[in-house]
């Protein structure tokens, strides 16, 4: 069974149609890279999948549950869908450990010591085991983003959403974050990434989606789509981004 299904999803902000009948299916284990210009609807699509944004038309299904159904318990759903944001959004008043253990303790009821172990393991996966007692403002942007990834991973989700997570980073810090993403992908996580890192997408993604004007414009194997753009819009976009 597919993990995520979007059926003719429509999303408007006021008079502005941001998602124009988007349909998509994601199988477990897939790595989907989503590229496109700003305003093409990429981030909005991700945010609709975990219910941060509501939709005006169509259906979104996650693991059999309809996300946009008012009866759906979004809290429970969000325990199974992790999301990492462009601006990391770490809680500044909490240490790294407490940032990571907050949800497991408060939502899943995990004991403090067990939660700390969980945090330690999550941090080891992102290469920051020694920072467990640090505070966000003591970390670099790349480190904060890796902690944000660890925080989402600690909830052991079935799906991870990444919303342009390297866009706010200095170039030299991007590499360490992309390495973590590769590692998480290797471990079999289903991932959907909105990204500008075309090289990374080509290397790691199983499928690439190019969005334009709120629609999926091109879709296919990463290597194929990037090497042979079938539409002028994608060609122009790749031209601009790669030069």
């Amino acid at each position, binding site marked *: 069974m597919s993990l995520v299904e979007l059926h003719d999803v429509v999303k408007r902000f006021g008079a502005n149609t941001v998602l124009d009948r988007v349909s998509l299916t994601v199988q477990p284990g897939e790595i989907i890279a989503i590229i496109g210009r700003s305003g093409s609807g990429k981030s909005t699509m991700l945010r609709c999948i*975990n219910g*941060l944004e509501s939709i005006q038309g169509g259906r979104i299904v996650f693991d059999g549950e309809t996300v946009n159904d008012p009866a759906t318990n979004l*809290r*429970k759903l*969000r*325990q199974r*869908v*992790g*999301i990492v*944001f462009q*601006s990391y*959004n*770490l*809680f*500044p*008043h909490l*240490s790294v450990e407490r940032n990571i253990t*907050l*949800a497991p303790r*408060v*939502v899943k009821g995990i004991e403090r010591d067990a939660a700390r172990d969980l945090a330690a393991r999550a941090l080891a996966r992102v290469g920051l085991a020694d920072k467990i007692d640090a*505070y966000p403002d003591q970390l670099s942007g790349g480190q904060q983003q890796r902690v944000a990834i660890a*925080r*989402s991973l600690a*909830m052991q989700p079935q799906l991870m959403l990444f919303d342009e997570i390297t866009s706010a980073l200095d170039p030299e810090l991007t590499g360490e974050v992309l390495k973590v993403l590769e590692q998480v992908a290797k471990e079999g996580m289903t991932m959907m990434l909105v990204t500008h890192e075309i090289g990374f997408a080509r290397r790691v993604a199983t499928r690439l989606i190019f969005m334009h004007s709120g629609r999926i414009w091109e879709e296919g194997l990463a290597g194929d789509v990037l090497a042979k753009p079938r539409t002028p819009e994608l060609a122009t976009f790749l031209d601009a981004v790669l030069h």
Partner: protein
Amino acid sequence: MRYAFNFRDIWAQWPSIAEGIGVTLMLTAVTMVAGLVIGALGAAGRVYGRSWLRTPLAAYVEVVRNTPLLVQLFIIFFGLPSLGVRLDAVAAALIALSVNLGAYTTEIIRAGLEAVPRSQIEAGYSLGLSGTQVFRHVVLVPAIRIVYPALTSQFVLMMLATSIVSQISAPDLFHIASIIQSRTFRDFEIYAVIAMVYLALALILKLLFAATAQIAFARR
């Protein structure tokens, strides 16, 4: 006519002054706690509540902040008995002071809540936290940290304002002053001394708040 300042008679009254200080500090402490609770609830109500909650809260805040504390005190101590509610001076004082402080803390904490970035709240929800959990763990502590200076300033002002309860003969420091005045007839000296005592209390309170900030907001 040379006026002979005589402070010795005042020092002799030290035990009474100490009692007055005790009552003033008790009034301050209780009012602060009550004010914090009312403020947190009121602020949450104004920011997250529906209009049936927001409107009465707004009315509460506006009415209390646009009328004098002295008049509020008189309404509670002198006015309520005619409606069948009889209160002693200290109880009336605590209620009036708490209701008054609560209106100010509601506004202060509300500003703090609104200052927490939306993205933090989204991150909290995205981790599966409920609304109450997001409020408690993600929003409240940063909000109070942001408004801590404004909040503690208000507390110091409230401590000084407790002097007003002397007007309903609650046995606070200021009331003790008038008692000592009638005992010693040293009008100027007693009030000058009491003024200095309040100044010292205000200073100590400010230092306590600064120390609390160091401890509470420290890295753990």
